[in-house]
């Protein structure tokens, strides 16, 4: 990860950061996996997803072939770039103190 440091206020809140970090490590993640991993309710997670989707950071897809009404969520290129920049900014903050 060698992105330009760019602190992102949208991503930084802890719940949203955990969501984006989870998505960043995967091609796509099922809604239920994110919900269960973070211990969130459906509505709380949907609210976070709506915010991230509004910023074009994530894409929400419903695979037509899957009859179990699964919802796949993936990070967009914009979201991935923002996440990598944010992590670089966090590392820069830590490094500036550690020397």
């Amino acid at each position, binding site marked *: 990860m060698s992105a330009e440091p760019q602190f992102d206020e949208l991503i930084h809140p802890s719940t949203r950061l*955990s969501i984006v970090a989870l998505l960043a490590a995967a*091609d*796509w*993640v099922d809604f239920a996996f994110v919900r269960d991993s973070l211990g969130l309710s459906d509505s709380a997670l949907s609210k976070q997803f709506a915010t991230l989707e509004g910023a074009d950071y994530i894409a929400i897809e419903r695979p037509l072939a899957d009859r179990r009404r699964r919802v796949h969520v993936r990070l967009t290129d914009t979201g991935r770039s923002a996440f990598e920049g944010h992590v670089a900014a966090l590392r820069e903050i830590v490094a500036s103190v550690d020397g």
Partner: protein
Amino acid sequence: MSKSVGASDARSALTAVEYSRQQVIAEIDMPRWYWLGLAAGWIGIGVIADVGPGWLFAAATLAFGATHAAVAQNVLSGRRRSSALSVRAELVGTRVPALVIGLLVGLSVLTVVAALLIDADGADHPATIAGVMAAIAVALGGPELMAAVRRRALRNAAR
């Protein structure tokens, strides 16, 4: 806002990022049914080799190989243990299919050698006995191999 974020907050955020990544890495695996199916197939072919005609053994071996080739292409990467997510390829690495195929080829050779040795020893049903031994090795060794892949992914992610 970045100016107001202290090092402690930034460190906590990075820890959360790392924890999320580890949750995804923990999902690197192959479905349990894959290993169990392989083990069952190994025993089945051993039994057929002992009690069935030669043509049936050849047909069963070919069918087993073809079925494995069809099934394995969806699971060999280790990125799709379940339908919950697909782990990014860069986290898993590209060596998993080669490792698994290597394990299977090695076990195939060992199964034949073991069957020949057991036969030379005069035991009944040497191929079945060798097949059961290989099946146990697959059922135990397969998941262990994937655990090693996960440990390696964790080490790489921490760098």
